[in-house]
């Protein structure tokens, strides 16, 4: 029942000098990456099972922290903290719905530590919006000297690759709706967060929370089936998701 209480004290923190070294270390040791630690630590503590080694990521590595304009949109470093994301002037310009939404993501202390990459790898609150935006993940793997790029939807955390940044398309002219259902007003794990993004032509919808992150592709009439198949077992939660989506879509259509 009781974990070995000294496990936590004995964790070896590996501090690679470069991102490449981090990927190599993760591969040879099997140790997990750690950034802010706000998501992983409580899990380890609850399970009473601490890893023997962790690979600490360094926000000082070029491109890993901060937000910049790319011409096609924004590049967000994976180690940008949630607090920085919420306050960044570029986010206010490109994604004006996000700063207010960020108030509902964890609490100030966690936003100070937690990172964008960590949140996405854990299927956290940002997943729905970034999926609906068709965000691209930049990643490093040990078998390719180049940084690779793939849709967030296809990205699988835990395969040893290292997320370095995200590319978000230029959404300044788009209409975006974002809603979170938690257990309470603030500092709650997401029961369900939904996002609707309309780029002027098509509407893209995504969800994350208890059933996991997913892009939704079915028509409104088949949505319940799609959610059920996607792992959303609670019928009342599926109902809430569909009502939130319908409301956001109506809202977007009205603005249009």
């Amino acid at each position, binding site marked *: 029942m009781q974990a*070995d209480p000294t496990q936590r004290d004995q964790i070896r923190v590996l501090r690679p000098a470069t991102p490449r070294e981090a990927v190599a270390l993760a591969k040879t040791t099997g140790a997990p990456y750690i950034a802010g630690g706000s998501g992983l630590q409580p899990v380890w503590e609850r399970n009473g099972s601490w890893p023997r080694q962790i690979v600490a990521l360094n926000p000082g590595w070029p491109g890993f922290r901060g937000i910049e304009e790319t011409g096609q949109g924004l590049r967000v470093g994976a180690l940008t903290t949630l607090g920085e994301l919420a306050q960044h002037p570029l986010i206010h310009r490109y994604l004006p719905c996000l700063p207010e939404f960020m108030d509902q993501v964890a609490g100030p202390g966690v936003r100070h530590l937690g990172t964008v990459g960590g949140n996405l790898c854990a299927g956290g609150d940002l997943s729905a919006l970034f999926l609906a935006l068709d965000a691209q993940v930049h990643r490093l793997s040990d078998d390719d000297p180049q940084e690779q790029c793939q849709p967030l939807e296809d990205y699988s955390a835990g395969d040893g690759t290292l997320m370095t940044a995200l590319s978000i398309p230029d959404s300044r002219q788009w209409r975006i709706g974002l*809603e979170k259902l938690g*257990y309470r007003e603030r500092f709650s794990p997401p029961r369900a967060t939904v996002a609707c993004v309309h780029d002027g032509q098509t509407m893209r919808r995504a969800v994350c929370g208890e059933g996991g992150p997913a892009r939704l592709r079915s028509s409104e009439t088949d949505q319940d089936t799609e959610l059920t198949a996607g792992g959303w077992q609670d019928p009342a939660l599926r109902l809430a998701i569909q009502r939130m989506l319908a409301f956001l879509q109506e809202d977007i259509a009205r603005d249009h």
Partner: protein
Amino acid sequence: MTTDRPASISTLAVDWGPEGQPGDTLYQRIDGQLDYPTDLLNLPGLLHGAILRSDQAHARLLAVDTRVARTMPGVHSVVTAEDVPGLNRFGIVVRDQPVFCEDRVRYEGDAIAAVAADTPAQARAAIAAIRVEYQPLPVVEDAASAENQPALHEGSNLLAQESLTRGDVDQALAACAVVVEHEYRTPRQMHGFMETEGGVALPDGNGGVLFRVGCQSGHRDVEQLADILALPRAQVSVEAMTTGGAFGGKDELTIQPAAGILALRTGRPVMIHLDRFESCRSGMKRHPVAVRMTTGCDARGHLLAHRVDAVLDTGAYASLGPAVLENFMDHATAPLYRIDSYAVTGRLVYTNNGLCGAFRGFGGNQATFAVESQLDALACKLGMDPGELRRKNLRSRQEPGSRGQPVRWTAAPATVLDAALASPLWQPGNPAGARWLTGTGLAFGAQGNGLGDGLPDSGGGRLSLTPEGRIRVEFGFADYGQDIAGAITRSVCDALGCGSADVEVVLGQSRGPDSGPTSASRSSVMVHGLLSRMLPEWTQTLKRLAAELTGQPAEDLAPGTGGLFLQGRRLIDYRELAGKAPPDALVAEAGQDFPVAPGQETPVGRYLQLQIATIARVMVDRLTGRVRVTDLHHITAAGRVIYPPGYLGQIEGAAVMGLGMTLTEDMPTRKGRMQRDNLDQYLMPTIGDAPAQRVDVVDDTPENDPYPIRGIGELGIEAVTPAIVSAIEAATGVRVRTLPVSPSALLEAIQAREAQS
């Protein structure tokens, strides 16, 4: 003296002027500057203790092997049931809980052994090395059928059964034009204090032990600890230090027995501090209640009959369960309303579902949730305004209580109701659009002060002048966040005319005066009573001594800030007076019984009564069923306000606690196992969930009332739950009777209603 004349009504606000400000300790507490007992980490020779707890909800204990643990690095002592020097049992009402289990564990978290080591990590490592062999027993988890299941203790699992009756309820129900019958369920709420259970036991070098702990009744703890440690009471003392919250959850002994035994064994101070996981699993909770109520009235809305059948789950040990049952029963009679016939029965049962005991509200708020909901249901069925139904049936100030006992109000119930019906929250709020459904609801509650029902209830205090010239006021109460020290200081300043810097409040010393437990909303009543007994004569002595020293006539002297004044001029300061007065000349002590109704051989219920009407405004999200409480307006009638910051803090704080119980808080169990283990799963309201609140005071206390000050520590939680569910019904048409409110169930009900219409 007790007419129903209109009372004065005022809205409370903190006065930020020099005299109105909260005491200094409040800011220190908010800043995290106040030392809690678990901050005493620099004690020389301090060892750290840890407790091995059962991981089974119900099992025979076949073997406890501590051999490896005893050899672990840094370990000084490992103790089990065999090492308890005296009585291996504790409990305020029934001593049925073992310090360390002997041959059986009865809940997941039952204590089996404890270790003292140089560091917390070493102590935990040793705990992990203790091998325990269990033989699982069937788990008693269903409270309703518990008494028909194998008994956890001698006899049956039915710990107590009570009934209160008046008239013939069957006959009365048959005569009713309208009857409503519903079942209500309340959650297993956790106190969720900032500082978890903890403290330190220090050997005194002469075979005795001093405890510096977070607790609610040092004197009562001394009695139990002396029996456990097999020491004379004179060799056990308790300092109830300022602690990070208690709310009833530190009323029983927590870590003291294990820490005390380890301190005696090692001869060194031993600190035990539960982490949040351990606190969640092993700590006290609020009794979950399942209650069926059948209530009827005539066609004009006069209440005629009320039947109640309740089961309270007290968990593995009795703790204060019997007293909680009594208070639940009292509140379940619907004490504010005239009902000719009632039959209230309640059963208190043992189960393997953790531990339940004292918790702010003490069973009363669970009952009031159901009673007030029944009134709303009747009003709905009658097509009558719920306020009107209540008005028709309210007791007047002259009437006795629901059990025929004398009661003493500070305002007429009708006055409080009128003020509630005039609340601005009844005005429609901002247009909420298609998404948010808004509604306003009202509930009314009564609450008594003191232990009640003739239980021994008394206490004392002490007043002196220190050599430094400070007026020292000593009581046995513990300060666990309510800022009783602020209220005492204000009372002394108001009575004497001195400044707050002249007053030194000393609390919670078992070597000092025994004021009785810090519970049952009794402290402020006792403080006022005892100060009223001590201060007049003490002040006379002060003036007489000053007169002797200064040659001025005593009757011309008046105490003020810093000293005694003659015609506005400070004549002699307190320090000089203290230096020149004969020893003990300025010491006053007093004791008193808690006020009970005159002329009653065995007091019934509680004499000093308070009222609260809470009006709640909510927004319900039509998309998801989630509920947002936007406003709470409380009309309180609880005597004179002596310390506005304390009064506001208690009412608003208790209301948010009740909001948590209503909307998010529950510690469900499965096969006796707690299903939440930390505050990221057990969800208490945050400041983001806290509504705007307004607290009004209806004060119609007669000038010559001997008990003008009442305790308001629990009042704010009394009516908030039924007010919120009433507001939810006003918004959605759906009445919730199982707490906490399930947004999912609410959403499905909203959808079903939409489909109908």
